């Protein structure tokens, strides 16, 4: 799949959000886009998925089966998880049995009869991931998939994405939380200054000078000492309540 000289703006005379974007997205690879808030990552991902059309340039070779998980899954819908995913399966011409392995994998099975509006942010995010994953798409586009997930699923997701990519899928991800840093089979790109350029793991980690939130696990009796030490080094330390 290839993006050729793609440019996008929302309004005819509005500012360009993206310009001169030329990219090759290879099958069996994970493509990670990083960048500051408002840099245009979500817009780029929607163009890649085919939800939005570029104002200029062209997108060629997009596979037929596309899975997309939005940054915020629209949980304000009057369905249970089972009913919702059942409808999504039928829209894809698939049986509801296609869903089960993915609800098991993402620990959603016990919640299948829960209405979508009653879900926590993390569980709603998982529904978004399941509906994108179960059709076994040739192109999988995930917008900030790690946001709001519980620690276990967040740790499991990079491995899951590697498996999906190994099966031949082109996986495109935007990731604010640096959860893909440990993976090697990742093509890294940075979205900044209204365009996209290839990047490295170190450059991604350096970011645009934005603060990054780290979780540090220490023994309870050492917490005060570590907090004082980090604060003395000039870091902002917040204790979970």
């Amino acid at each position, binding site marked *: 799949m290839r993006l050729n000289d793609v440019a996008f703006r929302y309004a005819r005379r509005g500012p360009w959000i993206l310009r001169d974007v030329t990219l090759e997205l290879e099958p069996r690879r994970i493509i990670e886009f990083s960048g500051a808030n408002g840099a245009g990552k979500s817009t780029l991902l*929607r163009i890649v*998925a*085919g*939800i939005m059309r570029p104002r200029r340039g062209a997108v060629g070779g997009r596979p*037929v089966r*596309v*899975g*997309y998980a*939005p940054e*915020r*899954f*629209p949980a*304000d*819908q*009057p*369905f249970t998880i089972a*009913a919702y995913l059942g*409808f*999504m399966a*039928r*829209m*894809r011409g698939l049986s509801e049995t296609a869903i089960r392995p993915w609800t098991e994998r993402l620990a959603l099975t016990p919640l299948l009869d829960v209405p979508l509006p009653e879900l926590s942010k993390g569980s709603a995010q998982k529904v978004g991931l399941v*509906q994108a994953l179960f*059709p076994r798409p040739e192109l999988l586009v995930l917008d900030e998939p790690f946001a709001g997930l519980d620690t276990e699923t967040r740790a499991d997701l990079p491995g899951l994405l590697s498996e999906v990519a190994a099966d031949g899928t082109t996986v495109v991800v935007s990731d604010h939380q640096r959860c893909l840093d440990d993976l090697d089979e990742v093509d890294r790109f940075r979205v900044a200054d209204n365009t996209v350029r290839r990047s490295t793991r170190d450059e991604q980690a350096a970011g645009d000078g934005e603060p990054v939130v780290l979780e540090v696990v220490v023994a309870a009796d050492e917490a005060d000492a570590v907090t004082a030490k980090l604060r003395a080094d000039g870091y902002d330390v917040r204790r979970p309540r």
Partner: protein
Amino acid sequence: MIALTRFHLYGYVRSQRALYPLVVAALFVVLMLVQSPGPAHGAELTVGTYGDIAAFMVPIWAWTARALLDTEPDVQGHLSALAVGRRSTPATAGLVAAYGANVVLGLVMLAVPVLQGIGFHVGGSAMLAGVALQPLAAVPATLLGALTSRAVIASPALSILALLGGCVLILLLSMGPLAWLSLPMIEWLRAAHHGEAAFTGAFPGVALHIALWSVAATAVYVWIRRR
């Protein structure tokens, strides 16, 4: 497309938005029962009711269609479009679902006048025309609702103004020399209140007029959705 149509309908019914037009329809049915015509002019007045219902329901159908189409969040619209694959399918499925809901609503409204028609021995062709007028008039009303839905007019305030304005404009235009531009509401009302023969005679022309209007409205809707 069938799965997406059912998804729209299921979401609309479960969201309880379907209750509002049903309540309005139920009130109208009660009104029809209370104002039930006497045996002297029963057949004549019943045929008039067929025209009245279709005219009364145009704004209700448009409102229903708009509400049904706006039930789905925008992001879900994107997910559904990717699931069904074809770019045109979501718009078509939405229209079919909205039309289906409107036909059901029309059937609820028709139950009493059809029973009255049988009771007053209204002629078969007039009754058939009266029944056929409802699903026919529901088509342009559904399209009017679709043209004021969020996919076309993003602002809710502008959208509701466009819906109300559209309904008033259709009524006003159908009274004057530019009636050919509008739905033939006054034409079918007049024919229905002039007796069975006039209603049956006017029906083919009314049906053709509604069909042409619907084709034009569909073209506009498809054009806007493709932009």
